[in-house]
């Protein structure tokens, strides 16, 4: 073995030549072939892979859309019509991309729920979780700017409203907004830079996803029991077990996506965006895409501009510090009798916020919005630390391979620290 060459175990001489110099094959085999993965995943563990595939499909369709799109305020709207009517399969590529944004958020929201319910954000996966929140923020920025590109009424007024959020910043707000616009209103310079950034950000997402996966492969995956892997008896090689399981989920997911594309492509969109942008007339309802509705509701629930904007950003910001807000040492909600009710309640709360975001802020809707906003922040800032403190967790199983619950010893009580490895099991 010459100095400086990697000790490859690949047999094929050509592949071996490559692998000794750039051990990609060995790396793929280690990280995606034999990678030890908890044996008890349920289908919630599909959603990371689904999100990755969605990201790739979005980039692919996006690159081809950009070949036919014109980022100019006078031509953008008609270039999208050109894609829909003239470009071969342009309708298909655009509908896949358009509905893909919604699919991406559905998948990522379920992925986040998985993390919340099974405590995937806790030690030692805090940084993994925070990188995920960064991905969410980048996705939101990308989706928002992508929605502006067709230059319809909702594109224009959405862009106006969202960029105006920054005017809430004291003193420099107005200057920042003008800087964002490149003018004194949303216009051609805004459209041009949004197109440029909409093309850039997905590649930043790819970069952060890479870090997210690297961090995951350091700590290893969480699992539905939320207890640590104690030895080989608790794991399965990633391939073929989870490549197959992910493929099954992927087929179902792509079927659902295709159903939207082929049978109800505009269901999740807003018909007002079929009207070209008109800077002189605001539509009757300025409503964001469904995936932003809960955050939009938080913004509108506060009758103070600065506070509303601050709370909206805080609603994502609170996720960054969640690993330190949750005081319970038990990860999985399966063993947390109180928190396992609170997490689904948070989902109900988010649906309520979504309803509020989609309706005129009048009467009952205002009240509901305020209660739901309060609940959102109470959940993270009050309930999560408190419940972890006084909740009595159920006894944890000894290991993933032996999910039989040990009876609590007299006086010992449930041992949240059951995560401590038992050397005898490492056989």
């Amino acid at each position, binding site marked *: 073995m010459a100095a400086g060459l990697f000790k490859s175990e690949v047999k094929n001489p050509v592949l071996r030549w490559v692998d000794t110099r750039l051990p990609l094959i060995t790396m793929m085999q280690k990280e995606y072939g034999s990678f030890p993965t908890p044996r008890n995943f349920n289908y919630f563990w599909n959603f990371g892979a689904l999100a990755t595939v969605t990201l790739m499909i979005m980039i692919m369709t996006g690159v081809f859309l950009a070949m036919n799109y014109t980022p100019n305020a006078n031509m953008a709207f008609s270039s999208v019509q050109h894609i829909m009517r003239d470009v071969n399969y342009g309708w298909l*590529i655009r509908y896949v991309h358009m509905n893909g944004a919604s699919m991406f958020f559905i998948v990522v929201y379920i992925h986040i729920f998985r993390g919340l319910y099974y405590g995937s954000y806790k030690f030692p996966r805090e940084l993994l979780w925070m990188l995920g929140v960064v991905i969410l923020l980048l996705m939101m920025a990308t989706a928002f700017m992508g929605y502006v590109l067709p230059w319809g009424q909702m594109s224009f007024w959405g862009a106006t409203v969202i960029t105006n959020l920054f005017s809430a910043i004291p003193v420099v707000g107005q200057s920042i907004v003008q800087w964002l616009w490149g003018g004194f209103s949303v216009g051609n310079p805004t459209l041009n830079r949004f197109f440029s950034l909409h093309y850039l950000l997905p590649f930043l997402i790819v970069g952060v996803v890479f870090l997210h996966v690297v961090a995951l492969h350091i700590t290893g995956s969480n699992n539905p029991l939320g207890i640590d892997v104690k030895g080989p008896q608790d794991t399965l090689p990633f391939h073929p077990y989870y490549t197959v399981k992910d493929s099954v989920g992927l087929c179902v997911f792509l079927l659902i996506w295709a159903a939207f594309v082929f049978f109800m492509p505009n269901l999740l969109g807003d018909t007002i965006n079929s009207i070209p942008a008109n800077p002189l007339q605001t539509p009757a309802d300025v409503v964001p895409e469904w995936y932003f509705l809960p955050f939009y509701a938080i913004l509108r629930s506060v009758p103070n501009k600065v506070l509303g904007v601050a709370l909206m950003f805080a609603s994502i910001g609170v996720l960054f510090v969640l690993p330190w807000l949750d005081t319970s040492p038990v990860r999985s909600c399966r063993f947390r009798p109180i928190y396992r009710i609170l997490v689904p309640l948070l989902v109900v709360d988010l649906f309520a916020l979504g309803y509020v975001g989609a309706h005129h802020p009048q009467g009952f809707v205002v009240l509901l919005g305020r209660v739901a906003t309060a609940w959102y922040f109470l959940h993270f800032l009050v309930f999560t630390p408190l419940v972890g403190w006084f909740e009595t967790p159920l006894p944890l199983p000894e290991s993933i391979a032996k999910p039989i619950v040990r009876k609590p010893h007299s006086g010992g009580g449930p041992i949240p620290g059951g995560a401590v490895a038992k050397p005898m099991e490492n056989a």
Partner: protein
Amino acid sequence: MADTLATAGHAGSGHGPADKSKRDFLVMLPLAGAVVGAGAIAWPLIDSMNPSSDVLALASTEVDLTPISEGSGITVMWRGKPIFVRYRTAKEIKEAEDVKLSELIEPQADSARVKPGHAQWIVLIGICTHLGCIPLGNKPTDPRGEWGGWFCPCHGSQYDTSGRVRHGPAPLNLYLPPYAFLNDKRIKIG
């Protein structure tokens, strides 16, 4: 899922070779499905780069011949390319018809390059067959080369009054676009 697979493997182990071919089939079937699926996804993306309907819709151009005076030509645009339409003089027609085919780089009779009864009109794609420059020679004042047709300023190729290459480096005659006479004074290209 792990349990199911483990059980299947255990049960199958008793069946010997039959189990292996069944397993191979189960592996190859989804792989084949994935390949077909990838192709079905790739094709719309690839085809989207082909000319779109609006480009194809501009595939024909009508040209009024009345403003063209004898001895000169005009350039019109068809599919983004220059088309030479030239009104040849009787002398130019005679020169084009009388040349021996054996003298030509790409032998082709003049009669094969014009429409019957309209020998005064020559319609050519005005792109040098060497490397795609536009030859000069439509205006009587342009350099037309030794054979009185067209002269390419890029690398010196020369064409006769029938658009046939007479002097390299161009290897082929100027291409003919598909066209038809709508009447004596109007043609439709494409």
